């Protein structure tokens, strides 16, 4: 655990990519195979659950620190992270010499679900007593299934590839999909040269970069395909060994969530992997993302939900055909293969091809681009005809050309402290527009989009202009104006404003505007009418 906690702290401290890779590589070269597997589990975002109740853990920690619950909560608000708060308030233990390895601590944690409450309490207090401050912090993250670390999958793959002297594409593929650290070994998962026996395993997605400058900079239009950029859930559909698997971009196996697509198991040839977008679909045309949103996250897909928000798959690539990995074929050849497969599939209302846009000159795309929203698309995808299917976000062959988001100027009215990196700073803002009778009506919460320096300035203003406190929320003197961008807009009965916007974010700080000059609810409703 010492070694892993140290790795975590060191990774946390640096924001230099090479240093991070070096640290992880060192870990992969020196830790035991068991520990490596657990580290990998955590680094790839897999968080085993041990069925502990956070409220109880808080209570135990407060008791142990001999402070009342309200003071614990205030401390928590200030720190912004529960595991860290606990590690800071616990009395410093005298003996912090546990030699338990990461794996042994996981074994220790695995005992928890079967315990009674009293046993759980003793078990956890025992652990805290043996661990140093940093180790307690990491332990808490494992305990509560909240382990997160600022390293991308790409970096983990790079470190592991360097440490094991294996091709990074191979590593990327091996750590995807479903695997359970208690059912496999590092050897089996990473080092086995044999063909993978895991039929469900998806390929890493190839991701596009936003286009830089004007599209004409891409050169000869003949070398490129253009498609609409669909606004749905990026998905991979796999049919191998007579079994269908649907993976979504978040690396989630979601086969059960899309019963409309299950027919594909009877029509696709064995050994097929398709890449595309799952969108909601009505009368042979895609619907805005918010229709799809009504069924995401639902455990039970009732008949009603399925009727109101049916989905379809829009395919735009094929990665495996007849059981053979064809990612190194050129885009044009994969496209032809995809079209062949599509032609042979009946029931095409649920399985669609993303149409190629016919264009000879870049100017034609310029003319079409403003029609994206009408086509329920977010803009264009531009793909080089000769390109292979690569791993992760790579520059050069796949570009996304997105439409500008919708935007309004709004006033900051509520603020709340952030967490993690932004604890102690007011970084979570609620914005309002002017309603009737000169009242400010909140319509969106947004976090990102400001530079650290701007966050500092806004924080400085907020701390000196607090009007009221409601728990962690502060009412702020309505003075600062920001341009808020969003991707979509919809009616909503749950919001005071009567509208809900999708992906709101701060585009810029309008220091040139006074609060009175911010937009009105009327103007928001106008946008709603336009895009309904």
């Amino acid at each position: 655990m010492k070694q892993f906690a140290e790795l975590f702290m060191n990774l946390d401290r640096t924001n230099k990519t090479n240093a991070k890779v070096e640290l992880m590589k060192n870990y992969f070269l020196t830790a035991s195979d068991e520990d490596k597997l657990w580290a990998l589990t955590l680094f790839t975002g897999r968080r085993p659950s041990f069925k502990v109740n956070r409220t109880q853990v808080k209570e135990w920690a407060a008791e142990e620190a001999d402070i009342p619950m309200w003071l614990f909560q205030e401390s928590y608000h200030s720190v912004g992270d529960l595991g860290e708060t606990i590690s800071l308030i616990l009395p410093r233990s005298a003996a912090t010499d546990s030699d338990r390895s990461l794996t042994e601590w996981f074994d220790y944690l695995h005992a928890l679900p079967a315990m009674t409450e009293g046993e759980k309490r003793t078990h956890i207090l025992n652990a805290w007593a043996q661990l140093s401050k940093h180790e307690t912090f990491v332990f808490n993250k494992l305990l509560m299934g909240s382990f997160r670390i600022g390293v991308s999958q790409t970096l983990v793959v790079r470190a592991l590839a360097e440490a094991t002297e294996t091709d990074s594409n191979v590593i990327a593929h091996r750590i995807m999909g479903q695997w359970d650290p208690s059912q496999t070994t590092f050897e089996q998962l990473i080092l086995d040269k044999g063909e993978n026996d895991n039929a469900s395993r998806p390929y890493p997605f190839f991701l596009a970069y936003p286009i830089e400058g004007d599209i004409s900079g891409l050169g000869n239009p003949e070398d490129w395909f253009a498609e609409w950029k669909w606004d749905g859930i990026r998905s991979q559909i796999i049919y191998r060994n007579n079994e269908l698997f649907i993976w979504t971009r978040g690396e989630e196996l979601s086969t059960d969530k899309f019963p409309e697509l299950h027919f594909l198991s009877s029509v696709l040839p064995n050994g097929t992997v398709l890449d595309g977008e799952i969108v909601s679909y009505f009368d042979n045309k895609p619907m805005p993302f918010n229709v799809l949103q009504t069924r995401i996250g639902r455990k039970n897909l009732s008949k009603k939900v399925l009727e109101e928000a049916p989905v379809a798959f829009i395919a735009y690539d094929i990665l495996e055909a007849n059981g053979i990995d064809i990612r190194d074929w050129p885009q044009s050849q994969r496209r032809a293969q995809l079209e062949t497969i599509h032609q042979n599939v009946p029931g095409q209302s649920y399985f669609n091809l993303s149409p190629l846009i016919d264009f000879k000159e870049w100017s034609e795309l310029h003319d079409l681009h403003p029609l994206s929203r009408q086509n329920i698309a977010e803009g264009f995808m531009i793909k080089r005809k000769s390109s292979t299917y690569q791993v992760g976000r790579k520059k050069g062959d796949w570009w996304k050309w997105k439409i500008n988001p919708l935007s309004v100027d709004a006033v900051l009215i509520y603020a709340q402290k952030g967490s993690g990196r932004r604890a102690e700073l007011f970084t979570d803002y609620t914005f309002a527009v002017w309603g009737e009778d000169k009242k400010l009506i909140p319509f969106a919460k947004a976090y990102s989009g400001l530079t650290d320096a701007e966050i500092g300035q806004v924080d400085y203003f907020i701390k000196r202009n607090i009007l009221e406190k409601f728990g962690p929320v502060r009412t702020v003197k309505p003075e600062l104006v920001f341009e808020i961008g969003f991707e979509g807009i919809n009616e909503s009965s749950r919001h005071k404003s009567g509208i809900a916007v999708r992906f709101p974010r701060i585009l810029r700080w309008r220091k040139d505007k006074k609060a009175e000059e911010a937009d009105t609810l009327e103007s928001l409703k106008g946008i709603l009418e336009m895009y309904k």
Partner: protein
Amino acid sequence: MATSSLLQFTGKSIYCAQAEAHIDPWIPVDRAIITHAHSDHARWGSRHYLAHKDSEPILRLRLGPDISLQTVEYGEKFVINGVVFSLHPAGHIIGSAQVRVEYKGEVWVASGDYKLEDDHFAKPFEPVKCNVFITESTFGLPIYKWQPQQEVFSEIDNWWRQNKNEDKASVLMGYSLGKMQRILKNIELQDHVLYAHGAIYTLNERLRQAGFDLPELTLVTKETDRKLFRGALVLAPPSVDSSTWIKKFAPYSLGYCSGWMALRGAKNRRAVDQGFVLSDHVDWPDLNTAVRESGAEKVYVTHGYTSIFSRWLNENGIEAGEVHTMYGNEDENEEEEAVQDNTVVPNEPGQ
């Protein structure tokens, strides 16, 4: 609070009406008693100042050489209109003092900023018995528990040593007044040339001229050969991390000494390579000790976690109230100061 209180909180100062004297006023007044020379406590424009004698060099540097300033020793009594005042060590920075105010048998202590641990430069804090204690609460949450300073200083020593092995400069940030002298008195100086930013250099020179035992620093200028920074320790105020000034030290490792470094979020936000948890304010356990040892029946809590700490005291049988003051922004003032010093000592290429 009744207006007949010995000390009153006007929002702009802590005011003693009987003596017509203000403690740490934010507005120009006739008579100002200064707890310490940090710029959120020692403000310009008052007609007469009174402070501990060790504060004098800095006060004259910051408020002007010609201010009307009377200085006293710790424990020395001075009487204004029947009110007996005396200053007592607060252990915060050089010359920092708690102000003891006695009138008709009632004793109030305004402690300014303070810490209990002996930093080997400022005179260590001495508890003063009183009826009413006015305390800061900068780190008034149970998450703040400082480790013994030797541990922090050996972390700094190790960090410097490791950077030296990697042929990197060690750029160490901290408040120029207080933190830097504390660092210089406690780390292993190893007979090396120590480089300093103008803000720190000026202050250090001033203190040395005044007779304080501090090592000589070398001012970083435009002309300084950059090769000399390899393996060297460079002392800088906290504002330099976003400046172009710092680029000349590359390759370097950036360290920051501050109590705020106790939190991961704060550490990551500053984007420093090493956070050293070192504060000149009391932590939670020492705050409680100080309140207990003052023996006060009533406590006023100023700048910091005022509402939280006063609630905690009230629940633990000590009557407490929160007071809004203008103190507690050393950080901002430090940045102003650094900018000013940069204009005095122009060492920014191209600015």
